[in-house]
């Protein structure tokens, strides 16, 4: 019995160490944004300061990069969500052989290194006289982010009853109505999750953007160039802000998920006390 108890204790300790390992580096990095030291570090602690945030606020290049990142991410969401959804619907209505053939091509971009996607996108559009720039970054990012959306929507389609579409058609609904009123509402959670993931994937993308961006900056490229040329704790201040945004969005995501789960539980077990 004691051996089993020890085993459970050891497993919990291992889990705790892993969590510390995953979270502590982020705390160290964020904390360095508040330390009054010219080189980013938390040790030795030279006192609390907000000067790195003031510097960050005054950095015009950072603002330009942030604006670019926002535009690129919105464009990527706007293009990859329809493509990924259409691909999932198409895949779902195909026979097994052509289905696995197309599936292979659709997931290939996920398994391709970002540098390869970036360079091939650059060469492809260069053939048509389109030079590098953020528009190419959007194209390159969509090529693999659409695949993530496709996988999410495809998973959701597993729980869809095609009989509903049949019924609607038999009752005289138009094709547009079937799509708008029956299929898309069912897919809505997967589409929303896909849009969120597409946004995050785009914001944090570095490899594809690096090879396609031309002379434009995005936030990750900006951080990358700052790390290579003279580091200041302004990067840590930016990191702290990004971590804070991530925590808030993760909390929102969790609240929505719990509310959804509670509603489902209420549907399954109606109050009949």
């Amino acid at each position, binding site marked *: 019995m004691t051996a089993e108890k020890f085993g459970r204790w050891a497993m919990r300790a291992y889990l705790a160490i892993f969590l510390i390992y995953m979270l502590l580096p982020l705390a*160290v990095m964020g904390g360095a944004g508040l330390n009054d030291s010219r080189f980013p*570090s938390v*040790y030795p602690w030279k006192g609390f300061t907000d000067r790195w945030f003031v510097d960050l606020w005054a950095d015009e290049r950072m603002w330009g990069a942030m604006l670019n990142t926002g535009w690129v991410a919105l464009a990527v969401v706007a293009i990859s969500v329809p493509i990924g959804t259409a691909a999932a619907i198409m895949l779902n*209505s195909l026979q097994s052989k052509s289905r696995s053939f197309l599936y292979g091509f659709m997931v290939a971009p996920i398994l391709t290194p970002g540098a390869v996607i970036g360079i*091939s996108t650059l060469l492809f559009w260069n053939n048509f006289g389109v030079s590098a720039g953020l528009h190419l970054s959007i194209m*390159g990012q969509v090529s693999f982010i659409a695949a993530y959306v496709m996988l999410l929507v495809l998973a959701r389609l597993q729980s869809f009853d095609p009989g509903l579409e049949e019924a609607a058609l038999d009752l005289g609904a138009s094709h547009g109505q079937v799509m708008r009123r029956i299929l898309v509402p069912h897919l809505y959670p997967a589409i929303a999750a896909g849009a969120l993931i597409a946004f995050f994937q785009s914001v944090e993308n570095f490899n594809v953007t690096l*090879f396609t961006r031309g002379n434009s900056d995005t936030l990750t490229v900006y951080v990358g160039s700052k790390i290579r040329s003279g580091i200041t704790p302004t990067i840590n201040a930016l990191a702290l802000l990004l971590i804070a945004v991530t925590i808030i969005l993760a909390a929102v995501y969790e609240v929505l998920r719990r509310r959804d789960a509670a509603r489902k539980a209420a549907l399954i077990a109606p109050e009949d006390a």
Partner: protein
Amino acid sequence: MQEMLRRYGYGLTFIMSLLVAFWLLAMVVVPNIILLEFSFRPYLPMVDVGGPKDVYSFNNYLTFFTSPIHIEVFFKTVIYSSLVTGICLIITYPLAYILSKVVKPTDAATIFLMLLVPLWVSEILRSFAWFIILGNTGPLNALLLYVGLIEKPVRWIVNYQGVIFGLVYAYILFMLFPIYNAISALDTNQIEASKDLGAGTIRTHWRVVIPHSKPGIASGCVMVFMLSAGSVIVPSTLASTNSRWFTEVIQQWMFEGLDWQVGSAYAFLLLVLCIMFVSIVMRVLNVRLVDIAK
């Protein structure tokens, strides 16, 4: 296709087909064909492009195969990416098991929520965090000195050490999540049955849990290897004087040499490496592509 037409009509089917065709042709298939085509062409001044000197050859690939340094960098990238993949697998397999079979599901959900933060923070910041931690006067050395484990600061970022620290931290969650999903789908009764029939812990894992989690292991290994071998930012942030990564050589051709033709050849070699790794994993673990990309 008939099915789609019947349900959604010609208009919607046409639009959806157009979207998918644009994606697969203009973003996936043709760009890669052009990459391959480009890699056989010579680097010429503008006026000679399309002229008599613009002929296909293997010269760009010969540049690689006649450069001992580039071959060495390529193999070091392969070896250290495999090492990172192995480390991630060893660390996360027990964790995936604990999270899916030992911890209460509500606790596991909370833990995954906490892990969303490092997952969603850009990899550039994740490697920057380790740049701070591993610094000579950084917190890790300070802690070890304080505890008394070391007597003078250790240089952590030597050879490929810093890169390995960074890559493991950056990509370990891509190993944890698929293995967790695979083990969660295993009926706990099977583990109980194995124990009741007299199998020890190791035997139960070897014969029951691991075979069941093969698709997750395959998926995790493919993702971690591909991300590591193709990583640009981690090897450049945590590099020491003698650690070079294959993507850095590609960058040199593209940005410093401005020789996109040789750059394409090198990028194509990286792609071939990843395709080979995927097929080896599929063969060894006996899984299908559908199991890997989920």
